[in-house]
């Protein structure tokens, strides 16, 4: 469906989920809303309810305590849904996981071990421009696939 794909790519509403991040990435995700970057140009809202959202934006290393909530929130979202992992901690556990010298006991090594991830935005924290870059790449993927 051409129209559906067009509409989906033009208004991906984002749900921001913090899984134990240090706040750096969260602040940058919120900063993309602000006048300097204005993510609403792409038709993106930051939504509060998982029922309304299309894109789950996860920041931070996934702690054991928050894992169930993360999966529950993902399941509450309506299809079609996409997942973006923002920040190195979220992508792989970053500084917290598997340091070679003993893992952090409470952190999962990467979001893709729990949920299917559609785009990765590395950085610690990524610049708001980098997050916008990740989102435009995701939108390109939405338009080409599905």
């Amino acid at each position: 469906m051409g129209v559906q794909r067009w509409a989906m790519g033009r208004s991906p509403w984002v749900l921001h989920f913090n899984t134990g991040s240090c706040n750096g990435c969260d602040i940058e995700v919120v900063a993309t809303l602000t006048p300097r970057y204005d993510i609403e140009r792409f038709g993106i809202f930051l939504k509060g309810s998982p029922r309304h959202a299309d894109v789950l934006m996860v920041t931070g290393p996934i702690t054991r305590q928050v894992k169930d909530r993360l999966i529950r929130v993902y399941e509450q979202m309506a299809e079609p849904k996409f997942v973006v992992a923002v920040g190195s901690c979220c992508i792989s556990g970053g500084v917290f996981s598997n340091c070679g010298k003993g893992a952090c006991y409470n952190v999962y090594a990467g979001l893709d071990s729990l949920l299917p991830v559609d785009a990765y935005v590395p950085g610690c924290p990524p610049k708001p421009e980098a997050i916008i870059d990740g989102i435009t790449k995701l939108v390109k993927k939405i338009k080409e696939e599905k």
Partner: protein
Amino acid sequence: MSIFLEACRSLLKPKATLRYPLGGKDLLQIPDGYRGKMALKREACIGCTICEKDCPSSAITIITDQKGKRPVFYLDRCMFCGQCKESCPTKAISFTKDFENASYDRKTMEVR
């Protein structure tokens, strides 16, 4: 009331938005010291493996190529802290201004 006046003034002022990524990339000013994606000067690298030992998130692994030992950087684990640059005895590691590293696949996120 002061916010109302400010809002009216804002309507007249030019917008503060940088039109990144469409049509505004040249407007983006990234300062010289920015720590983006890293780059390795292969000629300078002596394969001492100090960067691997000092990396706080084990984002560096050492492989062997024709010239000997050399590091490979994994961006999915990298914290862009700059310790490898600090530790490098021959200044072979540097940071570029490239921040557009978003990708669909974790395996592609490495700097060789």
